[in-house]
């Protein structure tokens, strides 16, 4: 069965500390992986996608097919990174998406 697991509901770090938000998936095929973010009182928006191999706002994520993981990382967290982060998976046709339950990141001053 297709599934996305984000084991941490809440992650608190101090400003300047490294942060890693975990995401593991289960998918029979070649998935497309994404990270979406929702800042306070804003809409859910795309942060990054594995296919682009990009770094957005200092965040990166590497798809590890062996470990079926797509963890989101940032070397130095900023207070403005505080938000809800969702890992998502889709098949190649983007006709169905599976989202994790989300991790709330709290960056303390």
């Amino acid at each position, binding site marked *: 069965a297709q599934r*996305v697991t*984000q084991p941490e509901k809440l992650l608190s770090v101090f400003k300047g500390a490294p942060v890693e938000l975990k995401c593991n998936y289960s998918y029979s095929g070649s998935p*497309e992986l*994404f990270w979406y973010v929702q800042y306070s009182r804003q*809409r*859910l*928006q*795309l942060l990054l*996608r594995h*296919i682009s191999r990009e770094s957005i706002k200092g965040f990166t994520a590497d798809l590890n097919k062996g470990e079926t993981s797509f963890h989101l990382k940032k070397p130095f967290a900023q207070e403005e990174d505080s938000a809800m982060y*969702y890992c*998502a998976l*889709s098949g190649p046709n*983007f*006709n*169905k*998406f*599976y*989202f*994790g*339950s*989300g991790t709330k990141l709290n960056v303390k001053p």
Partner: protein
Amino acid sequence: GAGVSQSPSNKVTEKGKDVELRCDPISGHTALYWYRQSLGQGLEFLIYFQGNSAPDKSGLPSDRFSAERTGGSVSTLTIQRTQQEDSAVYLCASSKPSRHEQFFGPGTRLTVL
């Protein structure tokens, strides 16, 4: 330009009533998605439209749920005979053809008393 809009923003209804939720996607976005987010849960995929066609309706939780899209634009999600477990935030998203990025609406918060 205008983003995805949804109406109403909040809906309170009594158990057993029917409700209609509306989504206006970004102009030119042929793909449209509906999701449900229950309290403390992730987004649950409901249905996907490519144009006016929904090739896979298996994500709809029961036959009380239906969705349609007309003119390749506006979509409505209808819930008949609402139950308390239908209470959730219903999100709509749209995307350009062959593009990966979904643009989300603000959601409709449905409360069934």
